[in-house]
């Protein structure tokens, strides 16, 4: 490994980054996931943390550009130079530029954005090139499998010379999810934290990840929550969509977040007591909105509340016992969502399809029956 002349480094551990524009070669979410994973390569072996900003000046500004692009190092069209980055410092210091004349991918076809970004961010943190052939900081692109990527010891030695090893106690950072272990999609014992619909798709949340499923498509996508909504915590406990407002609300503890697409709505997160819950309710187990009645149901232990989205207020006469109005649904509920006039309740690794019109459970399935295992 080697350092830039003078060994410039950041004199703080909590760094920020901002993606100024996106390559049309990949979806916005895939770009964000690749960038977030590339930072995670370095945050896992140092005390550094990386927080994504959506506006303003960040320490590390990331952009895609072709040919001459405002610095003294124009790109050169397809192939050749893929990207470059600047060592730590003010202004352009730390920034990373990617050549838009390349084709950027999220898989092992050339060129994988995650692999190139991890290399460039090594420069953004102060590493120069290494002459160790299989190290990440070797100057040439390596066709390694992005899914089995491992940082070379030479890279680790270099970056830890600049910033030291990770802090002993696990640090709560955005870019290093608490349980980055990837959950197994077809495990028969899969228990979800929360489930919701969003713009015609279904999202199944577990720890720091969520599965994305379109009812008409067979494949299912696994993503990090932070790659879509970096402001959300891991371990979401409840979630529901109000389609008429194009909003999804997420709950954890006594807080809740409202989003529209990728964006957090202003003045969120809020306290759940603002919805009308008594102060002894400290968390929500599950929530679901029935778009036909305009009512939202909140489930807490063996009770449930009904909230009128039109009046924006709890209905009087609640809470009521869950099994008095949802026969066959016992407490405690892990998650619930609404699909084609039915409620789908998740309890442990079971899923119960409840038909409100006949007030009965009409089918019992595995929780991950939607994943075509």
């Amino acid at each position, binding site marked *: 490994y080697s350092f830039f*002349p003078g060994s410039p480094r950041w004199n703080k551990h909590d760094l920020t980054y901002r993606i100024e524009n996106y390559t049309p070669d990949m979806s916005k979410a895939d770009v964000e996931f690749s960038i977030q994973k590339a930072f995670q390569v370095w945050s896992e072996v140092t005390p550094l943390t990386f927080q994504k900003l959506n506006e303003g000046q960040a320490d590390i500004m990331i952009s895609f550009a072709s040919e001459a692009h405002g610095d003294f*190092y124009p*790109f050169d069209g397809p*192939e*050749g*130079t*893929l*990207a*470059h*980055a600047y060592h730590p410092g003010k202004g352009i210091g730390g920034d990373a530029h990617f050549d838009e004349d*390349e084709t950027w991918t999220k898989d092992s076809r*050339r*060129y994988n954005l995650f692999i*190139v970004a991890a*290399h*460039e961010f090594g*420069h953004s943190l102060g590493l*120069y*090139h290494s*002459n160790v*052939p299989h190290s990440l900081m070797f*100057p*040439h*692109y390596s066709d390694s499998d992005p899914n089995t990527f491992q940082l070379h010891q030479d890279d680790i030695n270099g970056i830890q010379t600049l910033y030291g090893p990770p802090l002993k106690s696990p640090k709560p950072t955005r870019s290093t999810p608490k349980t980055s272990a990837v959950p197994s999609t077809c495990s028969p014992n899969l228990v979800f934290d929360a489930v919701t619909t969003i713009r015609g798709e279904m999202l199944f949340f577990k720890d720091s990840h969520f599965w994305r499923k379109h009812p008409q498509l067979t494949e299912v996508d696994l993503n990090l929550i932070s790659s879509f909504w970096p402001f959300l915590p891991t371990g979401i406990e409840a979630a529901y969509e109000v389609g008429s407002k194009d909003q999804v609300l997420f709950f954890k503890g006594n807080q809740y977040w409202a989003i529209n697409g990728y964006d957090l709505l202003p003045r969120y997160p809020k306290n759940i007591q603002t919805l009308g819950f008594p102060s002894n309710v400290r968390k929500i187990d599950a929530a679901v909105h029935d778009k036909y009645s305009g009512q939202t149901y909140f489930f807490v232990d063996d009770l449930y509340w009904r909230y009128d989205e039109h009046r924006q207020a709890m209905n009087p006469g609640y809470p009521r016992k869950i099994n008095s109005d949802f026969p066959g649904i016992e407490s405690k509920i892990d998650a619930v969502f609404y699909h084609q006039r039915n409620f789908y309740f998740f309890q442990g690794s079971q899923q119960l399809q409840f038909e409100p019109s006949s007030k009965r459970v009409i089918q019992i399935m595995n929780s991950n029956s939607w994943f075509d295992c």
Partner: protein
Amino acid sequence: VPLRPENTPIGEDETTFVLDYLEKYYGLSSDPIPVERKRSNSPVEQKIQEMQRFLGLKVTGKVDSDTLEMMHKPRCGVPDVGK
């Protein structure tokens, strides 16, 4: 276009490509090289040796096929040595 037979001198465009590469990544000075310097162990030859050493190639000081192939590989735009 048939492959060039082994060790034939590289064409004009390749010479330019090689000099560009050495300027960009190994700090070869872009000032014109005085003719008398060409005969000695010229800066170009030194830079070629530096590149071959850094990238783990056989150090010949000549742009042999391995060296030329390495120069054409996609890479990061940050130099390998120098500022």
